[in-house]
């Protein structure tokens, strides 16, 4: 964004504005946009979720407020604002008040590093991914605060569950993402997206075919397994079914949100939906190329950028629109998948969730790290000066090498998956074993 503003102010208008002003203006615009767009996303998401899940259940969903019920979230917002704010007498008032803020604020921070389109990001940190996940962990503190301050046993149980779940699922999420970091040699979100250009056989360029922006990491066995593990972990972090255990309404009423009402409750809701959005977004960014897609590179090549300062800002806008469209379409597809899963499955139990995380997902992600190193080794052989002569063998050789890497990692990952499902299958217990610990009354049966 700074590039465009620089171009417009300095080059087109000839104002010769200093750099700090440009940065100031661009960041102000970015912050404003984030604060405007993020809650709107949440509004739309709630509407989208309710309509979509209603169709899955042969219902219509909200259809009263506005055409097709599109203003339902607004009505909900009004309701939330006008509701009485109830604080339990025994609650720790200060912490009770702070908790929703501590939950919601980090989520807003996380928007800072999300690129919506080519060049459309607030800040491109070199450690963008690290920032993203580090900040997302902060909300666990808020959840614990909420659970503790509510002075409610259900809230406390919910908070304990939430924290345990968040902590244990951050591990597989980060290990899955580490694969992408290995592939791209970067933690910058922008450069991760830029690395996913080209054809869908990633990392291989074929002469004569233009850049389609389809070089997504999902098209490799490493990326596929990484995506599966990461998406599972994302479901758990976003507290979505089948991992919505912290707020399991059929068990512990509403978890840590039990004693919240009105706007405080809405803040939790906002944070949760925005976190879901961000998790979908980061899934798209790391495995599905973010804003990458056909046509972006062509538009971007004519736009104003560091490489091409003399470009036309119109193309910036066009590329931004197209990129945002790709990005949002993919993100909302994954949000739809989340809804879809919510519509279909029951939820796990808390110990099963932990077992699944530690015994199944984490081993798989670790295997995936090995696969990734294998993949990287095969794909980038020529980077080794001793093996550079191999690149002279030409394209057929590079395809064969790619194919071999593909097959090898695929076999490795599938084998790991099968092995893990075998190991994790519940043992065939007999009834006697099942009821061994049960005491059926003080009765001696016949």
């Amino acid at each position, binding site marked *: 964004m700074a590039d465009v503003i620089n171009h417009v102010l300095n080059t087109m208008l000839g104002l010769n504005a200093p750099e700090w002003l440009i940065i100031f203006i661009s960041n102000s615009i970015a912050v404003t946009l984030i604060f405007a767009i993020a809650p709107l996303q949440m509004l739309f998401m709630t509407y989208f979720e309710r309509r979509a899940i209603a169709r899955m*259940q042969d219902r219509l969903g909200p259809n009263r407020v506005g055409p097709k019920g599109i203003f339902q979230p607004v009505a909900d917002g009004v309701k939330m604002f006008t509701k009485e704010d109830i604080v339990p007498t025994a609650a720790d008032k200060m912490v009770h008040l702070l908790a929703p803020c501590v939950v919601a604020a980090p989520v807003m921070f996380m928007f800072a590093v999300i690129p919506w389109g080519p060049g459309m990001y607030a800040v491109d940190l070199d450690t963008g991914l690290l920032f993203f996940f580090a900040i997302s962990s902060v909300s666990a503190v808020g959840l614990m605060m909420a659970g503790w301050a509510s002075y409610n046993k259900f809230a406390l149980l919910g908070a304990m569950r939430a924290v345990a779940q968040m902590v244990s699922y951050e591990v597989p999420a980060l290990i899955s993402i580490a694969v992408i970091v290995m592939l791209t040699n970067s933690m910058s979100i922008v450069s991760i997206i830029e690395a996913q250009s080209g054809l869908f056989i990633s990392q291989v360029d074929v002469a004569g075919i233009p850049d389609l922006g389809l070089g997504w990491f999902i098209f490799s066995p490493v990326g596929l397994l990484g995506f599966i593990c990461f998406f599972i972990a994302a479901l758990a972090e976003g507290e979505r*079914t089948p991992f919505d255990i912290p707020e399991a309404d059929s068990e512990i009423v509403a978890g840590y949100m039990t004693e919240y009402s009105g706007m405080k409750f809405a803040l939790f809701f906002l944070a949760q939906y925005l976190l879901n959005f961000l998790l979908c977004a980061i899934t798209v960014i790391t495995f599905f190329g973010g804003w990458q897609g056909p046509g972006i590179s062509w538009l971007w090549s004519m736009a104003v950028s560091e490489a091409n300062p003399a470009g036309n800002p119109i193309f910036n806008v066009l590329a931004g629109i197209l990129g945002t469209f790709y990005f949002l379409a993919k993100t909302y597809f994954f949000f739809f998948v989340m809804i879809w899963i919510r519509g279909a499955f029951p*939820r*796990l139990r808390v110990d099963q969730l932990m077992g699944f995380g530690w015994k199944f997902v984490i081993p798989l992600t670790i295997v995936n790290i090995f696969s990734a190193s294998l993949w990287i080794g095969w794909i980038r052989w020529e980077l080794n000066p001793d093996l550079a002569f191999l690149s002279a063998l030409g394209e057929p050789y590079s395809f064969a090498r790619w194919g071999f890497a593909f097959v090898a990692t695929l076999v490795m990952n599938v084998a790991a998956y099968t092995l893990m499902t075998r190991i994790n299958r519940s043992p065939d217990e007999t009834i006697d074993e099942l*009821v061994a610990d*049960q*005491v*059926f009354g003080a009765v001696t049966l016949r």
Partner: protein
Amino acid sequence: MKAEGTMIKTEELQINIGPQHPSTHGVFRMLVTVDGETIVDLKPVFGYLHRNHEQIAEVNTYLQNMPYTDRLDYFNSMANNQAYAMAVEKLAEIEVPERAEYIRVIMVELTRILNHASALGFLINDMGAWQTPLAFGMREREKILDLFESTSGARLMCNYFRFGGVVRDLPPDFVPRLQSLLTGLPTFIDEFERMLRENEILRIRSEGIGVLPKEVAISYSVTGPVLRGSGIPYDIRKAEPYSIYDRFDFDVPIGTVGDVYDRFLVRIEEMRQSKRILEQALKQLPDAEGGHINPKARQNIRPPVGDAYTRIESPKGELGFYLVSDGGQTPYRYKVRAPSFINLTPLSDMCRGYKVADVVVILGSIDIVMGEVDR
């Protein structure tokens, strides 16, 4: 079950699940002592919906009690009506025409389908599904309720049975609509099974949970799908055939382990068997003799002195009515043997040692209705 050898001293926590809780199926309260998330003890607390139904019944005349039986288990008002009507008929020695018996069987089997459809939906809901299986079950239920409404005039509180028959004959479009419903029913059951039967999440949530071994199930007097889920082929329709159930060919599904999963499967299979009964009943209905009600049967009766107990296999289990008559207009004693009440007896033993999340699942698999439990 405390983990042995732990160094950390833990404290037990008492939680009230209920009386106002999303998944206690009404105003039921469980006083749960937990160690972490593990249940150490569970005490069911009843009575929030108690209205002294039995004493109200002692004030009312025999006929006036009929609509009150609707309110016992409001999912299966037809089954309640049948059990009560049978008890009074036994007491006053009223005969029921054949056609009326067929109509009764059709109604009660429809009730069984609708009860199981919604009970399974609620069970999956308790497991944490977001309403979808319940919505599918409720859709079938609504269709059946449409049939009930066209026949009896009400969807839930049918009040359709009378002593010696039913209040009015089936409307002309009932049979074709029911046939259409029956052709569509396998789609629903198969889809429900396809969606959930092999679902890994459902399986790990229900397999080995709430196990009730055979002998325990008998000694706890549990009935219905819970008893059959434990592997005891005891179905009153077979064990002591009442009405005209000896004319139908149907199977009794039983489970092997006696856990939540078995109860789930038994209920699905029972819906299929009910469909079989309905098909046979529809085939035999045109040949049935008599009208919808015995014209000689008086409704405002004074049965002779004595007592009578009849029971039926209601969707939730053995539903019995015990009536003592002193020869007056009102019953001297009126007692309901409510299946969901008795089925709650083993709840605390079934839950002990499992997690909090399992409690609601076990409770859901028992399938209680508080209107019947608290009476």
